[in-house]
């Protein structure tokens, strides 16, 4: 089973490759419409025209677009993401530090969002027709009317500044040492090094940003799960199970929930991808050193190689999460798994 899942995941990822190629061309194409001149901006004051040409050559900006794309793509495939104009460091170095931070953030956010969403969805279904459902419905409506980045600011204001319960700047508290880098994931590295204080600090720093991101996901999961549960509750096989004297709890757990889970899983696939978009602003607001922060810095400084690379990595992450969710969908739905096996 696990082997089969991996095999499916691999096939699914292979199918995403052409999309990725189009995405890279799109990113490259859009950014070359750029009116601003990154070369001029990254020159020190008093530089000569000669310096300008040299730098332009160094960046490879003097050749034709297609050639530039070809060179960029070729380097990309060999793992070379180019050099940052602004940070004056290889982009891959920047990315390797930022990527685990973002992944940690997204993983925790997904966990929080899905568990609250599923719990809330079940609660809404259980309380259907009552005041409890209306209250939860109102809460989801309000939650959805405020985007993640504003939740981030409100959370800082309320929990960080007023109540001072949780830290809201960066990845670690001041004076706390970084553990030796093994995986790049702070939570894992600190545990591996046995530094529980570091772990605690890293975890509390993660909480507020991931709550802000989870607020974007949870109400959607709640609503979709609730409405699919209401729909499956009307389905023929649920009625039939009831007519066989099967208990209501068992009908919910064995019949209604697995069927209602299908739309919820696809929702998580789409929203999980969007969540990476949410990290951009949330990381910036919490000064959390992830990909999003890197992206915003790069955008502000017109740092083309970084923007290109980070945008592409975001797309890889989205496609990856879509593939995982598709395989999960497959695991639940035998109709797709056994297609053609009739």
């Amino acid at each position, binding site marked *: 089973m696990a082997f089969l899942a991996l095999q499916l995941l691999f096939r699914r990822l292979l199918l*995403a490759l052409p999309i990725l190629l189009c995405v890279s061309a799109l990113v490259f194409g859009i950014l070359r419409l750029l009116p601003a001149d990154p070369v001029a901006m990254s020159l020190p004051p008093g530089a000569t025209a000669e310096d300008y040409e040299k730098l332009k050559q160094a960046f490879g900006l003097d050749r034709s677009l297609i050639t530039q794309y070809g060179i960029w793509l070729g380097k990309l495939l060999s793992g070379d993401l180019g050099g940052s104009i602004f940070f004056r460091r290889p982009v891959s170095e920047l990315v390797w530090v930022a990527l685990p931070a973002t992944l940690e953030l997204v993983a925790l956010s997904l966990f929080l969002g899905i568990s609250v969403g599923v719990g809330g969805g079940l609660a809404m279904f259980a309380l259907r027709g009552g005041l409890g459902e209306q209250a939860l419905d109102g809460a989801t409506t309000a939650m*959805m009317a405020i985007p993640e980045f504003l939740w981030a600011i409100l959370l800082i204001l309320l929990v960080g500044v007023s109540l001072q319960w949780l830290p809201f700047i960066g990845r670690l508290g001041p004076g706390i040492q970084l553990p030796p880098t093994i995986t790049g994931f702070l939570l894992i590295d600190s545990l591996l090094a046995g530094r529980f204080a570091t772990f605690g600090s890293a975890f509390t720093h993660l909480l507020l940003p991931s709550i802000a991101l989870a607020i974007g996901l949870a109400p959607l999961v709640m*609503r979709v799960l609730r409405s699919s549960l209401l729909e499956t509750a009307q389905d023929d096989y649920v009625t039939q199970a009831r007519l066989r004297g099967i208990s209501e709890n068992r009908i919910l757990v064995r019949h209604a929930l697995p069927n209602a889970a299908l739309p919820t899983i696809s929702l998580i696939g789409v929203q999980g991808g969007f969540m*990476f*978009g949410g990290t951009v602003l949330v990381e910036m607001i919490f000064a959390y050193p992830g990909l999003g922060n890197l992206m915003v810095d790069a955008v502000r400084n017109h740092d083309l190689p970084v923007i290109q690379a980070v945008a592409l990595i975001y797309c890889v992450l*989205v496609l990856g999460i879509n593939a995982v969710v598709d395989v999960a969908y497959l695991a639940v739905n035998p109709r797709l798994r056994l297609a053609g096996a009739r």
Partner: protein
Amino acid sequence: MRLSPRARAAWLRCLTDPRVVTGGLLILSIATLGLLAPWIAPHDPQEQDLLATLMPPAWAVGGEARFPFGTDTLGRCIASRLLYGARIALYVSVTAATGAMLLGTLLAILAAYFGGWVDWLISRAVDVWMAFPPVVLALILLVGMGAGVNKVILAIILIDWTRFCRVIRSEALVVMVRDYIAAARLAGFGHRQIMLKEMLPAMIPLVITMMSIEMGIAVIVEAIMSFVGLSVEPDVPAWGVMIADARQTMHQAPWGVILPVGAIFLTVLGFNLLGDGLRRALDARLVLSRAVATP
């Protein structure tokens, strides 16, 4: 156009739905306030009073009646800036949502009607677009095109046509297999006639619903882009800019953040309530996941 009794009943349901009414009234009042801003705003939104910076709202201790919602770091009147900000927010939401709706619906109906390679091409384009988190695509589009509020509108259209395209294409596919489409073909209808007279009317409830939700999304995207400084000129008051400015001083003056957040909340809430109510009243089969997805 004559309305069928079904359509009439649907519109009646809309007008009596509490969500539609609440959402509609919210949007209507925000729009009115924005339109009347030059007459009702107590100050010019750019007028600085450096002797009265970071004033609290009039009802708080230290507040003054001439600045009902207080002032920002430069002593500008928050109430006036909020009123003028509504103009930007609604301008972007209406134009961007209309553009995205037109582009997305057109492509969706073409894809569903012609099928084959047309559908393949459009669907693959949607796949490529969906690989981008919307915010990331917006950022690189604005880096590419340069900042500005009209660029933001163009960016939203170029990003969010996929939202319409995906949802409306799947609904159009449902309509395509209805026999009345085949019957129209047998009646001698041309492609354009079938698409405009038989398919499009069936999409209207869905399009209206999604349009409303998309307007809320556009408000958010504009706020994000002005927050990171890629939207309006620095001297134009937009809610996102106000939040970004006030963020620096939110320890001392939290209302400078809270008030524009509240404005965004009410606007988006209005559009969402309207969309949610319309969806129920018009019985638009809408997969929540794709349409209500925030960027």
